[in-house]
């Protein structure tokens, strides 16, 4: 049986003349068919939240001094952190691909005289930026540049 929807989902402002059976959610929600990718997409919110907080902790440690920074970096060698970051990498890639797929059609068709570029151009720009920034930032962080 599908999960119940909100009891007032799609309700009219005034009740009809007969009683109605309550609305139910799509049967495939949450983890069957295309809903699985959707639910996982939302669930990556937890990964992003934790990534932000971990980066915040690192930034704070950097301001605290060498001991704090080295301790924080050493902590990332813990297998739990490694597993989390592996999951995080997959999540970030998944979010990027899904979001970029939606991005072109989400651009307003016309903003005054301005028209958005065509979808292939937008996608090229997005993926180009993603790859370029990843290579550049990766090289910087890994000691290759600067």
């Amino acid at each position, binding site marked *: 049986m599908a999960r119940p*929807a909100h009891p007032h989902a*799609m309700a009219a402002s005034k009740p009809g003349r007969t*009683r109605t059976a309550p609305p139910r959610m799509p049967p495939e929600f949450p983890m069957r068919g295309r809903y699985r990718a*959707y639910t996982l997409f939302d669930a990556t919110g937890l990964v992003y939240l934790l990534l932000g907080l971990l980066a915040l902790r690192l930034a704070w440690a950097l301001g605290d001094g060498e001991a704090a920074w080295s301790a924080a970096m050493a902590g990332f060698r813990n297998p739990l952190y490694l597993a989390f970051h592996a999951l995080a990498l997959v999540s970030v890639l998944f979010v990027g691909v899904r979001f970029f797929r939606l991005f072109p059609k*989400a651009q307003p068709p016309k903003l005054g005289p301005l028209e958005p570029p065509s979808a292939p151009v937008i996608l090229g720009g997005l993926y180009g930026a993603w790859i370029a920034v990843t290579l550049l930032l990766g090289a910087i962080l890994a000691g290759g540049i600067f």
Partner: protein
Amino acid sequence: MSEVRKRRFVVARFDPDRDAEPRTQTYEVPCQPDWKVLDALNYIKDELDSTLSHRWSCRMAVCGSCGMNVDGKPTLTCKQAVEGYGDQVEIEPLSNFPVIRDLVVELEGFLEKLQHVKPWIVRAKELAVEAGPVRQSPEELELFTQFSYCINCMLCYAACPVVANEPEFLGPAAIALGHRYNIDSRDEGAHERNEIFRGEGTIFSCSYANECSEVCPKHVDPAAAINQAKFNAVIDWATSLVLPRGGR
């Protein structure tokens, strides 16, 4: 010769006067190979059980009446061939709607949301007839044509997880139609609609499931409309902060 194939149709039933809650009833239907799901339902009603209630009309996917969940997916039953299904087919009323009876859902909630977005040309001042027709270029027409193909079949509402959980969310078709008028060069009501979009309409509740566009039988792509509308609503909000309007 055509090959008739017997299929079991497990159909949701609900009589508000007799049933505490919905139940199912199974019918054996000899399906012709060229049948649509609607043909099977009409066979049930005509030959097996005249108490079955379901909506349908044009039989050619333009009226939007015959939407139902078939094997869990929102479907236009007059458009969907029976051939792709297995030995057993489950038919339920559209998800996310209160059910009046059997496969018939309450439409009034949708009609209210639709009216709320003022899906018509809004002008600050009506033009005199003597002024002649309003001219619109093919390019201007093309901007919104796709969003005008909506037949109000509500499959998108049945597919949307946000409609399921947020009663005030305007929903895919209503937002797409409001947006269709916002980007129509003849219309001057964008600010009013954007205030509804940002306000009780809560279009920002859309969480990019994209299911609405996946199930739309007319390729309206309401997900595109909603997300374009979000962008436009933010611009409208930002400009109204800087240039407050004096009200219409």
